């Protein structure tokens, strides 16, 4: 019983102070940002925008092959941007250790640069050999007409 009460109190305190604290930290941290971190922040937001594009494309495009374009490109690009942004932002001191972590994150980026087109190609090949023919222009126009 007592424990529950304490917990509720804690939660109330958290709720009441969360947003002002967040705002405070935002304003105070914006002052002592260095240029590399701002750059990383921008990269991360850009990656989010591209990922939004990929997600919307996955939803909107008419057939598997066109969805593949959205997924294969938007996905790899946004991953690369977000990872490099996070790598730049989390680099606090510029010691050898933090540089190594940054290089490792860039290693993941390289890994995705290599594997993402490959898995895209593999999936597409599998679908093609499974006699799923891609839509051509006529079918597409029909599908568009239906939507209207």
């Amino acid at each position, binding site marked *: 019983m007592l424990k529950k009460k304490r917990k509720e109190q804690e939660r109330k305190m958290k709720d009441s102070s969360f947003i002002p604290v967040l705002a405070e930290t935002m304003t105070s941290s914006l002052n002592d940002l260095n240029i590399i971190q701002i750059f990383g922040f921008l990269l991360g937001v850009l990656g989010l*925008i*591209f990922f939004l*594009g*990929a997600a*919307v*494309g996955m939803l*909107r*495009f008419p*057939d598997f*092959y*066109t969805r*593949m*374009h*959205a997924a*294969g*490109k*938007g996905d*790899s*690009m*946004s991953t690369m941007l977000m990872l490099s942004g996070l790598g730049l932002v989390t680099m606090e001191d510029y010691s050898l*250790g933090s540089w*190594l*972590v940054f*290089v*490792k994150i860039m*290693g993941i980026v390289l890994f995705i640069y*290599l594997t993402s*087109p*490959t898995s*895209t*190609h593999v999936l*597409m*090949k599998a679908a*093609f050999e499974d006699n799923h023919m*891609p*839509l*051509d*222009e006529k079918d*597409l126009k029909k599908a*568009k007409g239906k939507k209207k």
Partner: protein
Amino acid sequence: MYPFVVFVLLLLNWIIFSGKFDAFHLGLGVISCLFVTWISQDFLFYDRSKGLKERMHEAWAFLCYIPWLTWEVVLANIHVLKLAMTNKGYMEMAPRVVTIKTILKTDFAKFVFANSITLTPGTITMLVRGDIIHVHVMSQFLEDDLLSGAIEKKVAEIFEPGVLQKA
């Protein structure tokens, strides 16, 4: 000579992974790099007839190729974003399959070429059979762009300068 190159590259890889520079961990790294070189060094550098100088030149050209490719990737994503987000772009979409014949001979050059096609705007490699490549393309404009062969020329410059002179 090639096993030694593989060993040095793997050791560099280990140092990036490990981040520890004391003798114990470096010794473990040397042992495991020797082991990996022993069991799977024939995966890297498939074509062993090329000399070291040629390889260095190739690696440098490839490093110069990466920024150009990255720029193409950015363009690809802006293109997809346009198609997905705006109605006009959606209407322009006209997917088709295009067949092209490459002048590239070696497997690795074909691999780099196919993956570059996949990464650049609106085109994905579907099948590679011999020197015939089937590509899925999003619109007429992109097809013209693909058939002009800019990427192929770039890849040929890196890996097979001889082929380009003949053609």
